């Protein structure tokens, strides 16, 4: 490693936007109900992911398992600004997106455990789940592939003139893939209704943004195509929703794509087997202590909206129960019938 790269790894570079995490004077406000909704939704993801980590440790979940803990405000804020019918597609860190889309935690957890009640009947796993009903198009294991696919969803929306918008998520790692820029080009060329959400959690596996990206301001990644972009405090669900509303309105109105760089942070490792040697414990605990997306809402609910602790505890208990039920189902549901090996390879031709 040369000196320049080493220099790029300094602590200050790894926390480029603490300013963005401090509540700005013009931070948009949520109503009591909105904060309660955001709290419940984010907590569900947090508890679900904690349980998934637990089941993985017990050997009940196999393969890869990428947890979304720390990034909850991104997908919840985005969903709060979208409407029914808008499509969602993302990469492999996808459990949070599925829950945010309203998919059943039991079906998601049972897919993680590879059981027949899973969303893909146990044949997809953590990275490959879909719900046509909830307009969730995966769940893709090839880094960056979802960006072209999500642009294709938007192509279909434009083709059908259905007024829907494709919310296409990627990480800071995927943002360096070539097909992302092929897609940006066509999306702007054809004014496709797509919002590209770059979840910059600062590390692509173990490689920090500064070590992988010549341009670390991801909101600028669409400049050469004329795609507007902005950096958003992705730890504050309110700023996320506000930016999302702007971006989605832009896309829906026929103006073409929009890029949102969500500055966020993943508390857990890249996957379950990540030793996390590439960052300090301090860095992680600082984010948890000072910028936790759920804790911020909780504090606001108590301090600003006057919600009694007891009510929040009741929410906590309800979420835990949902997650426990999901785990219970996912660990007792039978494995797929062996005959499932041979199904769903091709659809029956109608011709």
């Amino acid at each position, binding site marked *: 490693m040369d000196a320049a790269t080493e220099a790029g790894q300094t602590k200050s570079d790894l926390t480029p936007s603490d300013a963005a995490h401090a509540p700005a004077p013009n931070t948009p406000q949520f109503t009591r109900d909105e904060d309660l909704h955001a709290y419940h939704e984010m907590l569900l993801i947090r508890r679900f992911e904690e349980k998934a980590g637990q089941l993985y440790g017990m050997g009940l979940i196999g393969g890869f398992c990428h947890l979304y803990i720390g990034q909850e405000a991104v997908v919840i804020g985005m969903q709060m600004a979208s409407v029914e019918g808008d499509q969602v597609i993302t990469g492999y860190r996808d459990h949070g997106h599925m829950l945010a889309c309203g998919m059943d935690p039991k079906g998601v957890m049972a897919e993680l455990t590879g059981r027949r009640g899973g969303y893909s009947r146990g044949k997809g796993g953590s990275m490959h789940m879909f719900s046509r009903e909830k307009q969730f*198009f995966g769940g893709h294991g090839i880094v960056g592939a979802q960006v072209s696919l999500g*642009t*294709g969803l*938007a192509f279909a929306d434009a083709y059908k003139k259905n007024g829907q918008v494709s919310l296409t998520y990627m990480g800071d790692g995927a943002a360096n893939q070539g097909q992302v820029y092929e897609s940006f080009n066509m999306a702007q*060329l054809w004014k496709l209704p797509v919002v590209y959400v770059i979840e910059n959690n600062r590390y692509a596996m173990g490689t920090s943004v500064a070590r992988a990206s010549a341009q670390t301001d991801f909101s600028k990644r669409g400049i050469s195509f004329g795609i507007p972009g902005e950096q958003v405090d992705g730890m504050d669900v309110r700023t996320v929703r506000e930016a999302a509303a702007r971006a989605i309105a832009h896309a829906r109105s026929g103006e073409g794509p929009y890029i949102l760089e969500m500055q966020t942070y993943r508390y857990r490792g890249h996957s379950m087997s990540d030793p996390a040697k590439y960052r300090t414990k301090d860095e992680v605990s600082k984010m948890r202590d000072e910028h936790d997306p759920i804790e911020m809402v909780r504090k606001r609910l108590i301090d600003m909206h006057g919600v009694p602790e007891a009510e929040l505890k009741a929410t906590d208990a309800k979420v835990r129960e949902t997650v426990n039920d999901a785990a219970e189902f996912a660990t007792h549901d039978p494995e797929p019938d062996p005959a499932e090996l041979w199904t769903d390879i091709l659809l029956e031709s109608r011709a």
Partner: protein
Amino acid sequence: MATDILMPALSPTMEEGKLAKWLKNEGDPVKSGDVLAEIETDKATMEVEAIDEGVLAKILVAEGTEGVKVNTPIAIITAEGEDASAASSTAPKADAPAQAAPAPDMQAEGQAKTPAPTAKTTDDAPKAPAAPATITNKAPAPVMAEFPEGTEMVTMTVREALRDAMAEEMRGDDAVFVMGEEVAEYQGAYKITQGLLQEFGARRVVDTPITEHGFAGIGVGAAFTGLRPIVEFMTFNFAMQAIDHIINSAAKTLYMSGGQLGCPIVFRGPNGAAARVGAQHSHDYSAWYSNVPGLKVIAPYTASDAKGLLKAAIRDPNPIIFLENEILYGQSFPVPKLDDFVLPIGKARVHRPGTDVTIVSFSIGMTYALKAAQALAEQGIEAEVIDLRTLRPMDTETVVESVKKTGRCVTVEEGFPQSGVGAEIVARLMVDAFDYLDAPVLRVTGKDVPMPYAANLEKLALPNVAEVIEAVKAVCYR
């Protein structure tokens, strides 16, 4: 010194064209770069430029003449005051293109093709399918079973059949659209999408930038929502940029989603060798795609199959790889004149019945197989030639039934030998027809080398009729 101006080739596969118009008259002075004449094929018009200074001394081919062979002298340029008779109109052919044929410009490269197939790839290929009758009369009886007896047949090229198939399906279903490089305004790099833009408009005939990876992914994403994209690759060589979406996104998602998310998409375009386009533009991917569960792979030979199977592919709810062949585009075959002619995917066809040996092939491989069968018949060996048509799912049953009858089998393909389509057939025959075989099954394939450019080496790298005959004789112990 007098110089012959020769009929130029617009493309690697062009053999002849029409001398549409002379723009200079005899006796006119010309200088380098002057446009002398216009020539046409069914696909393009090109200008013939002078590359020397002098006088257009003599026009050898009158304007309006059709079927002018490439490299035929069309005019003579002399130096000032020189006699035209000094020109050697029998200039050595090998030197000719360098003298007068303007190199096709970048735009025309690999795109402006004539429908004529090359005769350069095999020793014994006829010059052209100029006489469709020789092909027509091979239309086998079994084909007739796929449409009502007495159906009127029209002769059309594979190119026209493919276009008609797309146009018919687009008329019937608004969800069908075609996207790819040069499919719209240019009318198709190989003119397969000719006229579609005019009929269906830019919404449904979509020119893409040169970004195979990106637009293949966009096509797959659109297909996830229920649209039915036809994604044209200018050649399947370029689909290598997009193969991740073909395999990982298109082929696997139905399974990975537990049956929720189908992907009704057709990836089509020319596959395999054209003529003299080198290793990066000549790869045959038949075996690659046929290896992948979740895909259907079609590789037709005749125009009739091209039409009936492309229509079926567009209607199919699964991702389809539709492998065409550039050299076959211009070949003519009888096609049934029916309002809606659709063939079943996954059925081989006995193209030529026989009793002594089974030759199994597909796509352009059929040209070698059929010529060999004809030659063998003259030597008293009646070969049954099976056109697989679909490589996945593979119709093993038809092959096995034939081998049970003949006891001998040879496979023919242009692809590489290792893990090829022929290898698959051999393996299946081992299991399903072992007791019926009287000889080991032999394969005739492309050679195990990247495709060379030099004409002689290219010819050596491809299979040829003599190799098929030799293999058949070997399995017949003759």
